[in-house]
């Protein structure tokens, strides 16, 4: 049972006389945004709080059309993967290109003002808080059951496509609540991987959600799989025994927000900091803090009037079979090290706030570039130094590990904040998604990979490739957001549907 709140829904936008905040430059960090860029506008839901708790909704609506799907890179997947594995320069170039694709502005007019909402922000939120994916699963099964009852000729795939396309708008008023945004503001030092790693807000592209629906029967059975890690995939083109691999347009997003009046972590990622990080394995606790204004960080204002800054975000695209893993974090010195090669075009979006983020990217377990820093030595020396420092520290660590793998690195200082999580590489952890740990005879939790006592099972804190098959195609949402259970619940809801 979910007890909803409020019965009659406020739906007015233009007639409410809401105030939208256009914030001036109040931050203290250097300003890298291009001259002439429009000042950032803060998307605000605060005006919707005018109707306080009562019979009418205080939540209101900020309705925007759901953004289009991601257009994958027009290049053969295998060729792209091979090219990126061998070259950090090409990897980072693609990483920024993906970032730019995710920032494509989706117009939203409120109260006579036009806002530009990034593409990723219009996609489907995961299974907690503003649970848009479970609603799609519920709708899919209702349609599927109605179809079966009338012997309609549609396939599961057709019904999945209809379900995603149907009434495809997003109500940002339900998303920009304090409850939802606080939930996506992981603490820095709670010491609980279950809390912190599991928190943060997930969003998924339309084709990702459509694939979940069309593969619902298979996904429901994923928790029952006990595929040995050494077993090959079911075919040369499929590495999951559970479901067909996601389409190349599929994208997973993870966001971490922070109340702006509490400051934002400002981690150092220069060469010295990277050597320390890789050696220690953990980002510094507590992190240094900064106080950016809304002109320096992507900011939204909640229904309660609180401003939240996007401190970090992951973009994972299925451009290649093992995904491209891109991660951004906010920085008060954004033009140094991991921000030094950021294209100027990134400053075009949202009044330039995205020019305050740094980026790391990985596309493979093993570092295939013998000198990942070399291409940057002339033009971006701080980036080169940071890459060189991290690579050399990783090589040293790999040499000392039983598997001796020379791995990649990409860890977000604002998301991967738990012990031993700072020297990881995204892809390594995600290889264990929806897997079974025979040592403890239970489903793998991602905190297992960070446990020093479990390193025989998860070498190099998961950085090393261990598996030959990937049960959920690298998606933790099946394990940590309960997708199979939600599917089963909706399938069994009367009238029950038997597969």
């Amino acid at each position, binding site marked *: *049972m*979910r*007890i*909803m*709140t*409020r*019965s*009659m*829904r*406020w*739906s*007015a936008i233009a*007639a*409410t006389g809401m105030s939208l905040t256009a914030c001036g430059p109040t931050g203290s960090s250097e300003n890298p945004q291009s001259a002439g860029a429009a000042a950032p506008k803060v998307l605000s839901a605060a005006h919707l709080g005018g*109707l306080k*708790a*009562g*019979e*009418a909704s205080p*939540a209101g609506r900020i*309705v925007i059309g*759901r953004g289009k799907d991601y257009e994958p890179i027009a290049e053969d997947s295998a060729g792209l993967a091979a090219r990126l594995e061998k070259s950090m320069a090409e990897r980072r170039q693609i990483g920024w290109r993906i970032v730019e694709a995710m920032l494509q502005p989706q117009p939203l007019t409120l109260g006579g003002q036009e806002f530009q909402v990034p593409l990723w922000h219009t996609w489907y939120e995961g*299974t*907690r808080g503003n*649970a*848009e994916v*479970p*609603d*799609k699963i*519920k*709708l899919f099964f*209702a*349609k599927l*059951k*109605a179809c*079966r*009852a009338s012997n309609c000729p549609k396939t599961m795939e057709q019904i999945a496509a209809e379900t995603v396309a*149907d*009434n*495809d*708008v*997003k109500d940002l008023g339900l998303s920009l609540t304090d409850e939802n945004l606080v939930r996506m503001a992981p603490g820095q030092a709670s010491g609980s991987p279950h809390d912190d790693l599991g928190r943060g807000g997930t969003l998924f592209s339309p084709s990702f959600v459509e694939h979940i629906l069309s593969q619902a*029967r298979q996904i*429901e*059975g994923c*928790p*029952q799989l006990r595929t040995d890690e050494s077993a090959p995939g079911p075919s040369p083109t499929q590495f999951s025994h559970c479901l067909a691999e996601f389409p190349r347009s599929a994208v997973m997003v993870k966001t971490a927000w922070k109340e702006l009046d509490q400051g934002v972590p400002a981690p150092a990622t220069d060469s010295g900091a990277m050597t320390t990080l890789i050696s220690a394995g953990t980002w510094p606790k507590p992190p240094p803090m900064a106080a950016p204004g809304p002109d320096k960080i992507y900011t939204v204002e909640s229904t309660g009037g609180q401003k939240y800054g996007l401190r970090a975000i992951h973009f994972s695209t299925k451009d290649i079979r093992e995904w491209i893993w891109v991660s951004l974090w906010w920085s008060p010195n954004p033009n140094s090290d991991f921000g030094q090669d950021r294209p100027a075009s990134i400053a075009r979006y949202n009044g330039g706030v995205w020019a305050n983020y740094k980026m790391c990217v990985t596309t493979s377990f093993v570092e295939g570039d013998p000198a990942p820093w070399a291409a940057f030595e002339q033009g971006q020396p701080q980036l080169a130094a940071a890459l060189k420092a991290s690579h050399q520290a990783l090589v040293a660590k790999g040499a000392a590990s039983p598997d001796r793998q020379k791995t990649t690195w990409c860890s977000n200082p604002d998301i991967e904040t738990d012990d031993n999580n700072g020297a990881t590489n995204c892809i390594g952890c995600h290889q264990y998604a929806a897997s079974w740990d025979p040592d403890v005879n239970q489903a793998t939790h991602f905190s297992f990979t960070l446990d020093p006592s479990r390193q025989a099972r998860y070498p190099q804190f998961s950085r090393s490739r261990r598996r030959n098959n990937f049960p959920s195609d690298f998606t933790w949402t099946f394990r940590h*957001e*309960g997708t199979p*259970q*939600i599917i*089963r*619940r909706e399938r069994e*809801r*009367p*009238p*029950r*549907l*038997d*597969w």
Partner: protein
Amino acid sequence: MLAFESNSPDLVAPPPQGGAPERLGGHAGTVAFPPPRPPGPFRALGLQFRNMVASIIGDEDDRGIFFDTRHRPERLVCALVIKAANGLFHGTGWLAGPRLVVTCGHCVFHPRMGGWAQSIELAPGLSESTKPFGTATSTRFSAAQAWIRDGDKAADIGAIHLSEALGERLGWFAAEAIPHPQAIVGQVATIAGYPLFDGGYSRQMKHSEAITGIAAGRLFYPIDTGEGQSGAPIWLGGVSEADPAVIGVHAYEEEQTPAHLNVEANSGTPFSQDALQLIRTWRDMA
């Protein structure tokens, strides 16, 4: 009978007829479609999973979506788009007579809407983009006086008066008074309405649970509801009842449940005999 007020001078109460009723009859309507197919069993595709993981993550929304809304009672439930001085609202109503749609009082009058609604467009049996019976628009409303003047939640009931005899074609719900509160505690009840779901208010959703109780003139139940379901019919029985009798209107979510009751429940306005008499009066006025 409960006193009421209307926003239109042509809405005049007819002469009183008899005492307060215990039941108002429904009407089957004249529109006929092939009967709906019985649900399931569906054909098995041969793949069964056993030992499913038992735990469910997070809260559950137990409401079901009903797409075939051409039949009774689904076609008697109306999605409301309410235009008011302070903006646009969404609610639910249900046919209770030839020219009468009953809803909650706050769907037709609310200080935060700016007083009376200016107009309400209703779509009986709306199902996604399909409006199987079109839409009707009204500018004539009534509500219990205690709701209008005092905001009395126990009197949160209202009426939309139609110029077209929509009910003659589609039919209308029967309605029953609740004789004794204890008589219905623990009985399964159903609410059908048009909540916000997946970005819109276009899908009819139902859910059933056992009634928790009646207190301070309000009916409490753990039935899942959502924004947009204010005014939805509450009937005794399950979601598949073919000819249910409405016993109240849904009006409030959990946040409006008094803390001292110590229950997790939504609430609505139950029908007393006085309320039925009011509905009969509204039905005969239009």
